[in-house]
């Protein structure tokens, strides 16, 4: 018996005969087919028996009360910021999609970023410069003794280690150091000789305005190795490399310290090292003197 015959048999059992079904069923009048026809007729009766169900007694009042009790679905209110948020998200996705080109170009900057952050901390702010100003006398004191490179390395290794080799500062922020050196104010502040303060000692040093000049002199002395921290990488190759650690604090101190010393609003002190040795400690004797009592110059 084919599927076609079987379908015809089912249709006949459910009294939905189509044209030709009766002939098909009559042609295949085997015992098995009669049994199948009987089974489907019984199934039809069983299904029809399922139609006898108790009457629905649900009233419209019950429905009305149920709807009133349930209430309408709250309308979904779309907040005004959702479309804006969606647009922002789309823009972010678009930016990420365009990121591969930017990423390849920006990789060096990414590796450099910690150094930049470190340098930001070490940027010569005013208090930092004042703290470090105590270092300057030692370095400037030792500079004439010909050991500036060694002492500088001892003083400022952390700063030289943090120095970003490839850091590039905006050119518009780069100061013209030659203009500063040539200014008359600098020339007047610069002592002709440190020995003029205390002719008997070559270790005399100045802090504040005088140290500023000393720092500029240290720049002139070819301390380019330390300069990239302040003036950029291009200058790094021009220096001799000597006194790298020496020049760094001097530079920073001089920029921050000099204006404050010149302002005169606060009592400015100058530390003078006359050249003696403290018998108790064995260290060079330093004396703190009001700036107004000191005459600079030769």
């Amino acid at each position, binding site marked *: 018996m084919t599927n076609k015959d*079987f*379908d015809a048999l*089912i*249709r006949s059992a*459910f009294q939905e005969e189509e044209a030709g079904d009766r002939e098909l069923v009559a042609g295949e009048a085997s015992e098995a087919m009669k049994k199948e026809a009987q*089974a*489907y007729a*019984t*199934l*039809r009766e*069983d*299904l*029809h*028996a*399922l*139609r*006898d*169900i*108790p009457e*629905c*007694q*649900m009233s*419209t009042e*019950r*429905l*009305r009360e*149920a*709807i009133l009790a*349930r209430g*309408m*679905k709250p309308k979904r209110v779309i907040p005004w910021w959702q479309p804006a948020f969606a647009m922002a998200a789309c823009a972010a996705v678009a930016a990420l999609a365009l990121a591969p080109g930017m990423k390849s170009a920006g990789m060096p900057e990414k590796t450099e970023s910690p150094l930049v952050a470190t340098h930001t901390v070490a940027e010569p702010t005013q208090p930092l410069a004042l703290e470090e100003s105590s270092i300057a006398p030692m370095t400037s004191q030792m500079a004439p003794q010909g050991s500036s490179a060694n002492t500088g390395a001892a003083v400022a290794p952390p700063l030289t280690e943090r120095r970003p080799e490839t850091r590039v500062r905006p050119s518009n922020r780069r100061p013209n150091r030659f203009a500063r050196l040539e200014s008359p104010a600098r020339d007047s502040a610069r002592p002709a000789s440190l020995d003029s303060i205390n002719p008997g000692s070559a270790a005399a040093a100045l802090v504040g305005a005088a140290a500023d000049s000393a720092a500029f002199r240290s720049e002139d002395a070819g301390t380019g190795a330390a300069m990239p921290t302040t003036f950029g990488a291009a200058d790094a190759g021009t220096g001799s490399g000597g006194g790298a650690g020496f020049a760094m604090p001097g530079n920073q101190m001089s920029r921050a310290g000099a204006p404050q010393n010149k302002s005169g609003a606060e009592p400015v002190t100058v530390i003078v090292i006359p050249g003696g040795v403290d018998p108790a400690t064995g260290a060079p004797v330093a004396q703190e003197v009001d700036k107004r009592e000191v005459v600079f110059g030769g």
Partner: protein
Amino acid sequence: MRLEPSPFGGKSREFDTTFGADTDDALVNRARSGDFSAFEILFERHRNLVYRYAYQMAPRRDDAEDIVQEVFIRAYQNLHRYRDEAKFTTWLLRITANYGTDRARMSTRRQNLEQQEAAGALTWMTVGSGEDDPIENLEQARRKAMVREAIQNLPENHRNAILFRDIQEMEYDQIAEYFGCTVGGAKLRVLRARRALKDRLMPLLSESGGEF
């Protein structure tokens, strides 16, 4: 009172049209605009359609009426989603079938067994007439319960095909609209569903000593 044939088949069912001569779509539009009486007319017109389907899913009158209530509440809450392309009855039956499926999924096996047992007892007490032989009534109730169980265990497409055609007496074009197929396709689905139902029923009936 004027009587007209049921929209589904019209073989034995007749509908009272004193609710008004408005079409379903017109009543839906009125109900959408806030006229609850229009929705009440729709309810009176089609509650038996939903109830007959619901009763096969939950063979207790209370449960079936709960289903009817839930279906019409859902219909009222979602009237704005109803599209005029389909007939209102088709849309209503779709809600009923979906809700029946969800309800069956939510209920545990134990609850189903309890419901079936209670339904069998209730059917035997309520449906059978007192004049018939009580043993025969019990046998009929048991057989009905088995057929219902077999229908409920059918795949959803087969179950709906059987319920629509053999219980609800829907025309094939209505079934085709529900399934989204041609009339020939609907006929084929009904044939396949009947064969599947018979294949499921035969072992059940032979186990219980019944004949098929």
